[in-house]
């Protein structure tokens, strides 16, 4: 064991034996934004054996305020986040195997990546992907750690198949219109706080200190000085379609996925959410305006100009993204607005 991890092996619950275990593990990090770059850095510094990181976006100037792996040059060069993350992680350590994938974390892609993975760290910005992670976690018996934040508020929960309830037991349905960092803002310390919780849980799991895993959903607000642990053990639902006795893994089924289609000859992608929504335009419009976007609307649709593209949003959640033929880019724009 190298001197490098001496302060971590000196921590009694890990020790040299725990460090060997961490060293033998493979972690899949879904998303390389704020949470993803924080989680990836901590896993790399802690000496995990292998990291796989998937992300579909590129580094923008507005990311630099909170996404810790990225430097100014990455934003100037519009580097894909997964590639920029890999570059910095390799400067930090040569001892960890880093595999970065520039692409959309679709359920199919995640199933493929899950092979041989010991832990999935959620670092996404939307519940559609989280519900797919949740089903994959159950299907392949891989623990995952939920993390999310907006403003000064954040939360995390550890899901261990066979032991804890799953996200589908808890939420039953995907929350509609969660606040996102693009609509509610975000301060960097809230990111760090979620990463601290996710990474601590990850070290417990990787070092096989199962008895120390937090059996609660933790929520906190650093500005309002709030912190609470909500116990969830009673929530486990035998009838849950993701983790119960008769499972269908609903979020791996095509009918429950977001549909995106390139509209031929129009340089436009249509996005259709898995279930019809009922959108309140005024709230979204106001948030987007305060962010500096050009927003126009009428009772039937909302039109938003953003970075060369135009998003037209209908009341039922359907949207047209004009100015692109790239499905992943269009989905990314949609989920940044809609959560």
């Amino acid at each position: 064991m190298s001197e490098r991890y001496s302060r971590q092996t000196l921590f009694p619950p890990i020790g040299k034996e725990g460090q060997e275990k961490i060293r033998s593990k493979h972690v899949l990090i879904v998303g390389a934004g704020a949470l993803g770059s924080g989680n990836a850095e901590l896993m790399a510094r802690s000496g995990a054996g292998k990291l796989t990181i998937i992300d579909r976006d590129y580094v923008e100037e507005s990311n630099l305020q909170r996404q810790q792996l990225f430097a100014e040059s990455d934003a100037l060069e519009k580097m894909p986040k997964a590639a920029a993350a890999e570059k910095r992680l390799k400067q930090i350590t040569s001892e960890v195997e880093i595999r970065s994938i520039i692409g959309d974390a679709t359920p199919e892609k995640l199933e493929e990546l899950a092979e041989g993975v010991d832990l999935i760290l959620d670092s996404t910005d939307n519940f559609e992907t989280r519900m797919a992670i949740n089903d994959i976690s159950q299907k392949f018996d891989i623990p995952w750690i939920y993390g999310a934040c907006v403003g000064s508020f954040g939360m995390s929960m550890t899901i261990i198949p066979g032991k804890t309830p799953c996200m589908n037991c808890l939420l039953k349905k995907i929350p509609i219109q969660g606040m996102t960092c693009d609509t509610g803002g975000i301060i960097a310390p809230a990111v760090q706080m979620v990463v601290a919780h996710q990474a601590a849980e990850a070290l417990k799991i990787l070092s096989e200190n199962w008895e120390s895993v937090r059996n609660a959903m933790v929520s906190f607000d650093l500005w309002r000085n709030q912190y609470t642990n909500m116990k969830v053990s009673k929530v486990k639902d035998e009838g849950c379609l993701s983790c119960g006795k008769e499972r269908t893994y609903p979020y791996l089924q095509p009918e429950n996925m977001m549909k995106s289609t390139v509209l031929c000859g129009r340089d436009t992608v249509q996005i259709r959410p898995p279930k019809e929504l009922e959108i309140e335009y005024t709230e979204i419009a106001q948030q987007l305006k305060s962010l500096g976007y050009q927003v126009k609307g009428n009772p039937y649709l909302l039109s938003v100009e953003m970075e060369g593209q135009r998003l037209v949003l209908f009341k039922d959640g359907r949207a047209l993204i004009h100015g692109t033929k790239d499905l992943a880019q269009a989905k990314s724009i949609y989920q940044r607005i809609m959560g």
Partner: protein
Amino acid sequence: MNKIMFFAHLRDSVGEESVTKDVSGKTIAELKQMLAEEYELKLDSVMAAVNEEFASDDEVIQDGDTVAFIPPVSGG
């Protein structure tokens, strides 16, 4: 009596971190509806905890229980 706590942006909508009301006998769903009207909140997909334990919509609140409302968050 019951203490009802509001997390994150719900706190700002209510204007206070917690309010004290007698809501014993009500279900979480009934309390959500009551609060939604009183404070103009959207509580459909907000999680509820009773005495720091997750509570479903049909759970009945007892006298002395502390209820907390926590919005799930998607950003990251």
